């Protein structure tokens, strides 16, 4: 398979059948970079992610995965190229963590298939890599929110994708786990994966993303290198709220809602 360098949406309009949520969205996720998507509640972030994953058909515009339109790629092949990490949820049945990760291998199995020895070793390797090998046999319903989030990241890695799309990967995590999860996510870009994540925290974008896009009322208000885009004025406009900037003597910046 030829190298797929990016997942790119051009002039995209998206939403649900009777309701357009965003329009004129042009956004590209490149291999080997982390792109953060910031925006207020109800700004259309999750809907945009679902459209980029091909779970919702675009209402206008195009989505290309490398040279090919996303819609022309089968669900199974898509799952081998783009992985989705939803916000973690408790789940209905007490599958073990390793069973959840093995579900990431589904697109590598046949219609009537079941996990092979190779699938199992991939699943265990991904748990190992995220430092949660000890959770393998634990029921997914009984582990903590942070551990669940890491298991879902491991499941996405088990898909062996080129791109990973994460919906608020730190939403349900405590302070310590936020850093842990984000560092793992950032590390993936070093291996050539393209990572797109949404967040409520501009500081996360500042710290872990190479580029950032600001999404307000369904439009991209600004996009580009993190340090260029994330200014006090841009954030104040995006969230319609006051923003305070802290700068350390070394020149590092942090934002506070104010």
């Amino acid at each position: 398979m030829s190298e797929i360098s990016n997942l790119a949406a051009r002039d995209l309009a998206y939403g649900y059948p009777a309701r357009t949520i965003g329009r004129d969205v042009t956004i590209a996720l490149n291999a080997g970079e982390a792109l953060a998507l910031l925006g207020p509640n109800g700004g259309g972030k999750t809907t945009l992610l679902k459209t980029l994953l091909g779970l919702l058909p675009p209402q206008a515009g195009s989505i290309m995965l490398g040279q090919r339109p996303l819609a022309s790629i089968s669900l199974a092949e898509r799952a081998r190229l783009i992985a989705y990490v939803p916000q973690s949820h408790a789940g209905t049945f007490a599958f073990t963590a390793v069973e959840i990760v093995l579900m990431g291998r589904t697109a590598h199995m046949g219609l009537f298939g079941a996990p092979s020895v190779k699938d199992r070793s991939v699943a265990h390797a991904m748990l190992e890599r995220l430092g949660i090998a000890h959770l393998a046999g634990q029921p997914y319903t009984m582990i903590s929110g942070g551990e669940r989030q890491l298991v879902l990241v491991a499941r996405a890695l088990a898909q062996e994708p080129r791109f990973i799309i994460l919906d608020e990967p730190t939403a349900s995590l405590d302070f310590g786990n936020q850093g842990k999860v984000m560092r793992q996510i950032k590390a993936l870009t070093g291996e050539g994966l393209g990572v797109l994540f949404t967040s409520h925290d501009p500081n996360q974008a500042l710290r872990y993303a190479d580029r950032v896009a600001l999404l307000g009322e369904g439009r991209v208000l600004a996009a580009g290198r993190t340090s260029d885009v994330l200014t006090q004025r841009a954030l104040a406009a995006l969230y319609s709220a006051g923003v305070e900037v802290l700068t350390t003597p070394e020149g590092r910046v942090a934002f506070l809602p104010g």
Partner: protein
Amino acid sequence: MTKTSGLRVSGWRGGALAVAALVVCVIIAFVAGRFPVSLSDLVHALWSRLSGQPSGLPASVETVIFNIRGPRVVAAVLCGAALAVAGTAFQGLFRNPLVSPDLLGASSGSALGAVLGIYFSLGIFAIQGLAFVGGLVAVAAVYAVGSAIRAGDKILVLVLTGVVIGSLLGAGIGLIKYLADPYNQLPAMTFWLLGSLAGTDPSDILPLFGPVLVGTIVLFLLRWRMNVMSLPEDEAQALGLATGPLRFAIVAAATLVTAASVAAAGIIGWVGLVVPHLARFLVGPDFGRLLPTAAILGGGYLLLIDTLARTIAPVEIPLGILTAVIGTPFFIWLLAVSHRSWS
């Protein structure tokens, strides 16, 4: 896998336990009853069938084993397995441990078919045929209506459509019962609606075995995908599953086995709701182990119930009543000891 939780036992031990329980239930079912059949009679009769040599047993013993108790044992095991397998599939598909195989109207459709057959004084095969077709038609109608409504959560729409059409069918059953002859037809309808295997003979086995085998094989082949289908729909799609066609296949297979079971034995509640929990308690939620375990446990459970139904009182007790009377305390015990393992 480093560690399993609580009371869950490892896969093969849970499976072995289930098989052992089924074998014990089968032996009890052949031996128990008013006509005495000993364990050695049973072994001799089975051996003579296998080897082709005369068993030397009285013809009446062979008749009881092969023509009376045998078909009933096979039918009870098949019906119990079918209901448990369908319940397991539906609980996974609808991501809800409170779901039973009649969620989409399979039982009400079958019941209306059977009650109509009794009302028009049709023969037993026509009644069973109508029950089978009624179950399939009801679920097909629910599925068609549910899919035609293009709003919101597809699964929720499907479930609500099932509930609504199910109560419409219930009204139809009520109407037929109201119109029926209260001395001949009404008792037959009531008896059928409570479930019974009393009239089972050898010719009933094939129409039951065929659909149950086909549906169960389809579900077993899809075992891994069914695990993934128990995730929220957008996640299952992002993992590469065509959820629409898969849902259709699972509903069709589960409905086939449910309708075959209801046509043969009438409405037997409870098995499809609770046996999947017991199976999950033993081997965990992975369908590759869960489906066979549920089938074996369901078969053994219904066989035990049917054996009690024909032995504990001078008259046959309807199966639907016994499954509830015996199952409810058992389920409450299971809830108390298993903590969260039903989930």
